[in-house]
């Protein structure tokens, strides 16, 4: 099967000459349609920068990104936005504080001149488990979990194939995180979505993904199958360290 997302030799460089630093350094991976691929690592590892580079929010200094065989240029056009949408970590920061939920959902429809915007927005709200009563609310009238649902609904407005998820549950309580992760799994199964999921939490990565890339210092150190992760098999010492640190104050292990 042809890969839906193909990242090859991706470099994101910030700064000039002697100050130049590679936030992402020669990273390659590919994601199949319908797959959830994880990017896991600690702060500064470059995992979010990869998402931002794909979304056009960070400069691609070298390397290529193909979506469904089509190479991405330096700008992202409307067609890209219809295929690929992003959900950010902080549901408090990613919604407009002075616009109603409805107006924020309708914005993509307005920009893309969709005639059936209202029908889509109604469906999107339903899909994330929110009702008509939430339409006229403002973000400050919603809980953190509800806000993240709105952000997901907005990402669904254009019926994308791919969602770029940047720590979608790290600002949420565990009970709410469980609800949002279940919602994402349902959406993926029902709509055949492909996820690129960034998280610092190995538990979230293991729960959502079959395969993931471990990032450290801008470099992809290891691509690991979740079955190996679950069995505690890590080839790279950094992955082993990450796993050990997560386990030290983590769940009870069977046996």
């Amino acid at each position, binding site marked *: 099967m042809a890969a839906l997302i193909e990242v090859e030799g991706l470099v994101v460089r910030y700064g000039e000459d002697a100050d130049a630093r590679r936030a992402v350094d020669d990273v390659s991976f590919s994601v199949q349609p319908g797959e959830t691929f994880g990017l896991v690592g600690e702060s500064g590892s470059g995992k979010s920068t990869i998402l931002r580079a794909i979304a056009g929010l960070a400069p691609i200094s070298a390397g290529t990104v193909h979506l469904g065989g089509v190479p991405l240029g330096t700008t992202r056009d409307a067609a890209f936005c219809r295929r690929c949408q992003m959900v950010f970590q902080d549901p408090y920061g990613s919604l407009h504080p002075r616009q109603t939920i409805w107006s924020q959902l309708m914005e993509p429809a307005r920009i893309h001149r969709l005639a059936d915007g209202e029908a889509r927005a109604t469906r999107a709200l339903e899909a994330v488990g929110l009702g008509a009563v939430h339409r006229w609310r403002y973000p400050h009238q919603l809980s953190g979990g509800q806000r993240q649902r709105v952000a997901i609904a907005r990402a669904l407005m254009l019926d994308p194939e791919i969602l770029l998820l940047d720590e979608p549950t790290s600002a949420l309580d565990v009970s709410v995180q469980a609800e949002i992760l279940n919602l994402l799994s349902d959406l993926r199964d029902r709509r055949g979505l492909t996820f690129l999921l960034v998280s*610092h939490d190995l*538990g979230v990565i293991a729960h959502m993904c079959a395969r993931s890339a471990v990032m450290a210092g801008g470099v992809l150190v290891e691509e690991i199958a979740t079955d190996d992760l679950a069995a505690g098999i890590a080839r790279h010492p950094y992955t082993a360290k990450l796993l050990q640190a997560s386990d030290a104050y*983590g*769940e009870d292990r069977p046996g």
Partner: protein
Amino acid sequence: MAEPLISVKDLRVAFGGASGPIEVVRGISFDLGREKLGIVGESGSGKSLTGRSIMRLLPAGARLSASRIAFAGEDLQKASERRMEEIRGRGIGFIMQDPKYSLNPVVTVGEQIAEAYRLHVKASAATARERAIAMLRTVQIRDPERVFGMYPHEMSGGMGQRIMIAMMLVAEPQALIADEPTSALDVTVRLEILALLDDLVATRGLGLIFISHDLNLVRRFCDRVLIMYRGRVVEELAAGDLGQATHPYTRGLLEALPRIHARRPRLPTMQRDPNW
């Protein structure tokens, strides 16, 4: 049992609402000995307000009542503000979540530690400096003389939290309250900070109140755990017995955590009972 380090009985905190006061901490009681006591809960459970009530550091508008808040037998509700300033730091240290916001950005970290020392102990600037450098060494900062002169923005998250711990321990308190001390840190750094905290608490015989949202962390790190929900303690357990928790909220929290080694197709979600 000897006099507990910290004793709290029927603690209540309320905020004035448009339709009368709303109680957000609703009758918390516990005693702290020379042990590691975890207080776990989700946002809005009142866990942080409980910690702040002991320090008498509540936001404006909060109304506190309790039949007892005592530190080493002394009634803190009767203590003057001046006496409280001695207790804060010298009696009970307080570590907050994010060192970036709790350190003064325009003063070097060494001076901040030295200042904390001189606030509580009569000492010359030179002695305070020596104490601060010794403390930096205690929290395993390499090259403490150099780090003494550095500013908070030059610190990584883990270094910043070491500085906070150094600042809190330099006045040699008997008890520590740590409010989400590792939640802003990467897992590998968290491991180091917890090991450091564990070691310091053990060697100095401190009492520690560890406030956290992370049930797994608390059960591995603490001796005893209180689980808070909507201002109440719904369950109290020895940390090792958390697996045998009986309250549906505690069970729900444990079940809702994604697992690395035992994958489940869906995460169980909680049905909240208004009677909890």
